[in-house]
């Protein structure tokens, strides 16, 4: 069959009176992510939070080369120096190791433990949730009720129980944290997808004869992945805190590896001797996790497009 509609055959006559716009300067479209970026840049809070995250990530990556001292070498003579010490600017810990160096190197593991489980859970959880949301019916019921079982336990308890069962160690901590976050992400993914599935443009795509898989790939995915991603970034802070908690309980990272949660644990005993130093790892956890939260808030606001 020939195609009757081609550019050359289109007659514009008689329709100009209806042309819905007066001539105006041609504004090239920024595209969706262009808009998001544009709005994100104008959000000072999100930008500040993003800057902090970038700095911490930079420090973490470069830490082996830029630490002022060896983070592993201690000195029994120089234990628990206070903050502001001439040699140890941020003091030293209970084994006399430099706090700055340990905090810098500790950022590596802390960030790793914060981001990795969320990333894995993002992959697994959003697949489950999008599938359940798009297919609906019995598939949805079975998947989501199974997921609901995990919500019976508080997430801290679940992480501790799983880590306890699997044994201590970085790998096992990541596995247990992934198990904690997957159901949460799946649930959000399911509700977002269910919302999108009822939109008229999905009906319109069905009417054009597209298969379920094509609709999912072309029409659904782009619209759900953003909100799920934003939600996931807000979990990074939770993950960091939980990972620290696991280390604190001795279920995560093992000494002498520097990790903020573990450092908090070992410095606990020094809290009456040198409270400032003991609080430093906690402060680091607090600042980085709140930065992740603020950044994800900003991202969510920037992604809200209005008509």
């Amino acid at each position, binding site marked *: 069959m020939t195609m009757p509609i081609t550019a050359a055959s289109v007659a514009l006559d008689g329709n100009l009176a209806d042309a*819905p716009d007066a001539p105006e300067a041609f504004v090239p479209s920024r595209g969706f992510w262009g808009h998001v970026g544009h709005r994100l840049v104008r959000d000072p809070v999100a930008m500040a939070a993003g800057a902090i995250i970038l700095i911490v990530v930079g420090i973490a990556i470069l830490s082996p080369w830029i630490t002022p001292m060896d983070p592993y070498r201690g000195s029994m003579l120089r234990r628990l120096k206070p903050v502001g010490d001439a040699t140890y600017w941020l003091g030293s810990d209970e084994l006399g190791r430099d706090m700055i160096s340990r905090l810098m190197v500790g950022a590596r593991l802390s960030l790793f433990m914060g981001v990795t489980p969320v990333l894995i859970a993002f992959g697994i959880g959003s697949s489950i949730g999008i599938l359940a949301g798009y297919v609906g019916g019995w598939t949805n019921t079975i998947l989501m009720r199974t997921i609901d079982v995990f919500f019976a336990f508080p997430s801290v308890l679940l992480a501790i129980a799983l880590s306890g069962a699997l044994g201590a160690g970085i790998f096992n901590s990541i596995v247990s944290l992934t198990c904690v976050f997957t159901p949460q992400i799946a649930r959000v993914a399911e509700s977002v997808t269910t919302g999108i599935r009822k939109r008229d443009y999905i009906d319109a795509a069905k009417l054009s004869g597209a298969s379920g898989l094509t609709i999912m790939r072309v029409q659904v995915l782009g619209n759900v992945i953003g909100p799920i991603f934003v939600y996931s970034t807000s979990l990074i802070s939770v993950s960091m805190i939980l990972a620290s908690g696991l280390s604190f309980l001795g279920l995560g990272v093992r000494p002498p590896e520097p990790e903020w949660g573990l450092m908090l644990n070992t410095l606990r005993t020094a809290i009456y001797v040198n409270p400032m130093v003991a609080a430093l790892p906690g402060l680091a956890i607090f600042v980085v996790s709140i930065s992740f939260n603020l950044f994800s808030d900003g991202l969510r606001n920037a992604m809200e497009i209005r008509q």
Partner: protein
Amino acid sequence: MTDTTIPTVPAVELSGLRVAFGKTQVVDGVDLRLERGQALALIGESGSGKSVTLRAILRLYAPGRSRIEGTIFAAGRDVLALDKRALSEFRGGDVSMIFQEPLLAFDPVYTVGNQITESIRRHETISARDARARALALFERVRIPSPERRLDNYPHEMSGGMRQRAMIALALACRPQVLLADEPTTALDATVQIQVLLLLRELQRDLGLSIIIVTHDLGAAVEVADRIAVMYAGKIVETGTARQVVRDPHHPYTIGLLRSRAEGAMDKGSRLQTIPGSPPDLANRPPGCPFAPRCFLVADRCRKEMPPAAAIAPGHVIACWRGEEASAAYRAGPTPVAVEMA
């Protein structure tokens, strides 16, 4: 009409009202007068600033996000001078408002009757029993069937038309002098819309209520209003009695609105007259008349100077340099507005 009588204090008087959100000047110099006991319709298309004008009368916009200039007098009060307490007394007490979506006006967790008595008791010292009796009388007034039972309904238990009536009852609870209605019938079926419009007319007549109704539907406006004001891009372009505006329009925009209606088409299936183009960007207003780029009678002057509001007959005011030509073109016949090849 009111020219020969002794000047009375109008129910609402706006002069030089300007409302801006950031750089967007949504309302740009509105002068409007509503006499006591009158019903006025403010019509215009989306983005014309009609709803913003209405909401400004109740100062519903937070001062940080908006800038209001000019003066607003309503029910004898200088609205922009009211302090916080006087303002909350004023809202609902002197002037109240109904909306397009009644579900937004009601709290879903309380019964409708509770919310009405609550509202009465907030404004007046009155026993719970008396307040309930008044709520019941209000429900009868707005013709809700079996009112006694309906008072104990939650908002979601009512149908759309009934909720709209209940919202009108809530708005009337504290005996306001002025009722502001923001697209009150847009979401309703035509069969229900006409009932609500007739109810508004009845309330105006029986209670001496002054009403401003904002709508995009000329038909609904004619059913309720004594006077009609047509808004375009934040300015009032034509004001007059309903008869003057509908029968003898002088502004090209009003003419365009009347011409583009499907029932005005000469023949079934013949092309409708349209207004070419689309409204201007309110953040970058061109100088001169905002309608000039779309006007079939545009002249050089229109692009440079904003025409002042001028009376062409008692009570009939237009803001157009070429009102007489427009009117002549309208009266001349069915297709004077032919701009097919713009």
